[in-house]
Every structure is written in C-alpha cells, then in structure tokens.
C-alpha cells in the first residue's frame, strides 16, 4: 500500500521531494516519472514523489499505482476529495513533503528534467526559492503574446521582475513551503509572495519541451480571473497591514472627483443660471462622493480588523537568531523548537 503514509516516522528525510499536482490535464505520467527518476538517480539524490490528484482526474490514479519504485525513491499518491484546483493541490503536496529540498513540477511535459540540477545548486548557493523560466520560448506567437502581456501587468503591479510565473517548475527550501499560504489562483504568484516574505528568489532559465508548444486559448472568464488574481496579489503584498492606505486613497480620489463635478454644477447655477433640477451631472457628482465615502469606510473597517485581530501579523521576518552556543536561553530555545516541530508532525 504505497499511498498510505506511515505517521510519526523517524526515517531520514529524503534529499528532494517532487510535488506534482495532477490538475486540469496531464501528459504520459509514466514517462514523466521515469525521466525525472533517472535524472534524480544521476544527481545521486534520494527522493519522494508526491502526486496530488484532483478529483476530476481520478482516472490517473491506476497509472500512478503502477509506477515502478526505484531504490531510495518513494512514491506517494494523494487523491483530493473534490475538484479543488491547483493551489489547493500544491498546498496539500507541500504540506506532505519532507525533503530537504522541495521541487514542484507540472503534470505535463513543460520543461526538460535537466533543469533540476542547476535549480538545486542555486538553492545550495543561498537562494530560498528558485523559479523556472522557459527560455527560449518555442510556443506559438499567440501564447507568447498573452504571456508577455500578463507578465507586463504583473511586474508593473507588484514591482517585481519575473518572466514566467506560470511555469510549474520551482525549487524551494522547506521554510518557503511552510510559509506560503496558497488558495484560489495564488499558485501563479508564488515568487511574488515569497519575495514579500523576505525570501531570496532566483529565476533560472530552463529548456522548454516541444510538447508544451501548442496554442492555448482560454475563455473570457479565465482572463478576468487572472486580472482579479493580480489585483488580489497587489493588494495583499502591499497593503495587508495598511488597508486604509489603499482604500483611503481610492475613496478620497472618488470623493474629490464627485466634489469637483458638483462644484462645477453649482457654479453654473449661481453665475450662469442653469437650473440644478435639469442637471444629471449633479447626480453623478453625488454618486461619486457617496462611493468615495463608502470606499473609505470599508478601508476603515479593514484597518479596525487589522488593529484588533492581527496581533500576530508581524511586519518582519526573522532569518535567524544568533546566540553564543553556551547560553542558557539558546539551549531552552532549541528544545522548544524541537518540541514544536514534533507536534506539527503529529498533526499531519
């Protein structure tokens, strides 16, 4: 029963956890696995494969069960109870991963497995998260155009500079996996979120596979969803702790616009005798002012929520606490951390 995880294990952690969310579509999983397994053997890394299968693709489970298990490589299959999407699948996979390094990959042929080595090396060199960039792109012109447009907006809104956030190939340290809180469409913004947590993020170029070149058209809903995701990330990374800065600016702008419009109408009434009752513009002005105050007050609610609930939301992230090795505080602290880790494991 290879899909049943033994709890509370005392085994050595594998070098690498490979998390593969099988959501939406998948390629030949057998070939995907064997290529990766071969590459990992070549790199002399022990590994665990974690396939997280979305309910819609449960047909993939029999194939996964048949995968041959190599020496020092374990296979875990997790079947999701419903169609929860890629972010949820990734979260489940990352929670289960016990490797010293965690790699996520798309369940279809996206990049060459040869990118694995350089990514792991970049982690050893000090990066906390390494994201792949398919380069050079061999997609159709349309694919590249929509990707270019998407990334232009993302980098403008989040003041970051990533070229391929949609690439499923990422390598990270366990600390990053623990802190990422993914839901909805947030998996696309893993590098942006990690950066806002203070992690060192590096982008490396990986060779794209020919199977990945087909043109993909998405429905209007998908594009609108993407835009909304960008807006969410923009808001969350910049204004989580200061919601009033965002809503306040927006609300004040709307209010000022409405006030200006109404001022104009009133001036025309006083000096040029244009009857107010005939002006639809007056209505627009009032509407804008009301909208402005409502936006502002929503921001105020947000601020009150942060002020009264977010005692634990800290404005900083600690990389490490350094003490002299012999100090009493250092000893107790270390014991405490170990206990905490043990408790977290048992919960899984």
């Amino acid at each position, binding site marked *: 029963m290879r899909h049943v995880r033994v709890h509370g294990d005392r085994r050595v952690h594998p070098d690498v956890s490979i998390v593969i969310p099988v959501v939406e579509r998948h390629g030949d999983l057998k070939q995907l696995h064997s290529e990766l397994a071969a590459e990992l053997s070549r790199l002399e890394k022990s590994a665990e494969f974690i396939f997280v299968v979305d309910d819609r693709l449960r047909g993939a489970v029999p194939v996964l069960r048949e995968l041959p298990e190599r020496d020092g490589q374990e296979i875990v299959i997790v079947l999701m109870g419903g169609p929860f999407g890629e972010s949820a699948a990734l979260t489940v996979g990352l929670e289960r991963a016990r490797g010293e390094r965690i790699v996520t990959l798309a369940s279809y042929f996206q990049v060459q497995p040869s990118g694995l080595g350089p990514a792991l090396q970049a982690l050893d060199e000090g990066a906390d998260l390494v994201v792949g960039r398919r380069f050079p792109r061999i997609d159709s012109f349309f694919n590249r155009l929509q990707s270019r447009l998407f990334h232009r907006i993302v980098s403008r809104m989040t003041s970051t500079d990533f070229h391929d956030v949609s690439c499923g190939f990422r390598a990270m340290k366990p600390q990053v996996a623990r802190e990422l809180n993914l839901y909805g469409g947030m998996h696309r913004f893993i590098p942006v979120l990690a950066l806002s947590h203070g992690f060192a993020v590096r982008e490396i170029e990986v060779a794209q596979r020919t199977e990945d070149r087909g043109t993909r058209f998405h429905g209007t809903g998908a594009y609108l969803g993407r835009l909304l995701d960008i807006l969410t990330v923009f808001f969350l990374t910049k204004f989580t*702790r200061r919601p009033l800065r965002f809503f306040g600016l927006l609300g004040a702008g709307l209010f000022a616009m409405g006030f200006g419009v109404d001022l104009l109408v009133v001036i025309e009434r006083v000096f040029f005798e244009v009857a107010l009752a005939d002006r639809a513009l007056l209505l627009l002005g009032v509407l804008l002012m009301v909208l402005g105050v409502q936006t502002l007050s929503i921001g105020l*609610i947000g601020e009150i929520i942060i002020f009264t609930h977010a005692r634990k939301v800290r*404005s900083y*992230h600690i990389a490490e606490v350094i003490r002299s090795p012999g100090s009493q505080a250092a000893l107790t602290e270390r014991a405490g951390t170990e206990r905490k880790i043990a408790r977290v494991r048992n919960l899984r």
Partner: protein
Amino acid sequence: MLDLSIVIPLYNEEESVAALYEEVRAAADGLGVDWELLLVDDGSTDGTVARLREICAGDPRVEVIRFRRNYGQTAALQAGFDRARGQAVVTLDGDLQNDPRDFGLLLSTLDEGYDVVCGWRHDRKDKMVSRRLPSMAANWLIGRVTGTAIHDNGCTLKAYRSDVVKRARLYGEMHRFMAPMMSLSGSRCREVVVNHRARRFGYSKYGISRIWKVFLDLVVVKMLLGFTTRPAKWFAVMAVPFLAGTLLALATAVYIDLTVPPGGKYSLVFPSITILLAFASAHLTILGLLSELVVRVGDFKASDVVLPSLAGAVDREPSGGRSQ
C-alpha cells in the same frame, strides 16, 4: 526575568558595532543590573552580521536577530520588543551618536513612575538644514496633532517599561512618534536631556524624507484609538452629513414637485439624490454595527487604550542642565 533589555537596530553599521558593544557593555555593567543586549540586524548588506557573530560568540548576554531583508527601523524595534525579557527596555541607535552612559539617567527617571522616558538631544550634532530643521518641523506637527509636545521624537534613545511597550503595536514609520502614540493610550511620558555625539563612521541611513507617511500614520492612529473604543458612534458621526443632505434633497424634491406647473416637465434628479444619500447614511450606520462586531470578537482589550486624564501628559524638564 531580567532587569534590563537593550535593543539596538542596526543597518550597515560594520565599522561601529564593535565599539558600540564595548560601550554598551561598560555602561550596562556599571549599572549593576542583570541585562541582555538584543542586536537587530535589519538586512545589512555589509559585514555587520559577521561582526555580530563574533560579538555573540563571546558573550551569552547578547542575542542577534537577523532579518531576512531590510524592513525598516520600526520593524527592527518591534522585533526587539517582542523578544525582550527585561523589565525595562532601552533602545538606542547603532551609529554611536547616542551615549550608553545615559542609561542610568533614563532608568532612574523610569523608576520615578513613568512608562516612557524619551531622550532629548539638546545639543544635536547634525547638519542644520538637512537634518535638524525638518526634524523640528516634524516634532511641532506631531505635537499639534497628538497634543503631546516632545522636543525630539526622532531620538532613538528611549526607555520603556516592558509591559507597556510589549502592548504597543508598531507599523509603518511609527518609531518616529513612539511617545505621542503611547501617551495616546494613557502612558506617562517624560523627556530628559541626553548626550549626543557627532557621527564617527558611515553615514545616516534613516532620513526624515517620509514625513508625509508619518503624518498619515499619526492621523490614522489617533482616529483608530477613538474608533476602537466606540466604533458605532464614529460611523454614525460620519453618517450625519449624509443624513442632512438627504433631508435637504428631499425638501428640494418636494418643493419642485409642488411648484411644477400642471403638465410641466418633472425632474427626477432630486428624488434620486435623496435616495442615494439616504442609502449612504444607512450604509455607514450598518458598517458601524459591523465594526462593533469586529472589535468585540478581536483580541483588543480596553486596557490597551486607557484614556483617562493622564493622556497626553508630559512632564518636561526645564531646558538647560541635566538633572541626575
């Protein structure tokens, strides 16, 4: 529990940390108390961390908190406050401009029954135009808005009672007005004149350029302290002008309705405005109720914002000499 925690935010202070540690150690040892030193590295990019490791290895009373990246002085201080184990917490700059020999004065003033003791760099050794003038303007402004007139909000050398400072929630650029902010929540503040020395190494990393953000934060904090104690009331206050507007628009609509000649053109503008404004005032009132709910289920306690007569009370030392 220790007697004293010393918190020092550091950002690219490679040259000064060793001398800083020696000075602090000498001063703290001279006080005859149990102390710890919390050095917060705010994402330095020079050799600061390596120096800190050396210091740490030789002294178990020193703890270094290294940030993942640069988060600013407020976050660095907050991290220090969060980890402090002393009954009193003293903060100072990492650039050697503050004098650790002032610790004794700060602590003895704290013992007189104050929650916050602020250093006042009476003879400030900085450039007049670029540093001192903007700072004077900012201090005046902060004093006007909060009603807590402090000469030198920008001085990092301050002493706090631990239980008071651990309750404070800092964000943005709040380290610039710790005292006014804490006095808004009922803390007793006092100023004492401290020594100030010219910079020996490096250059200043924390300027006053973000004064407008400071000001915005200040207004928000003042408002929040009022809001969180009576949220529904304040939303209702916000709704009042809209309610007045509703009545005015309604009156106008009725007036037009009565005066329009039979068969004449009837305008919908004023009835619409009436509805819109009525809707807005209802919306605000409802939001007020929602915010009551938010505050009630939160971890916010009224004791965090005790606002009795003490609020804003600052005992100022007569300028000139320093009392010991």
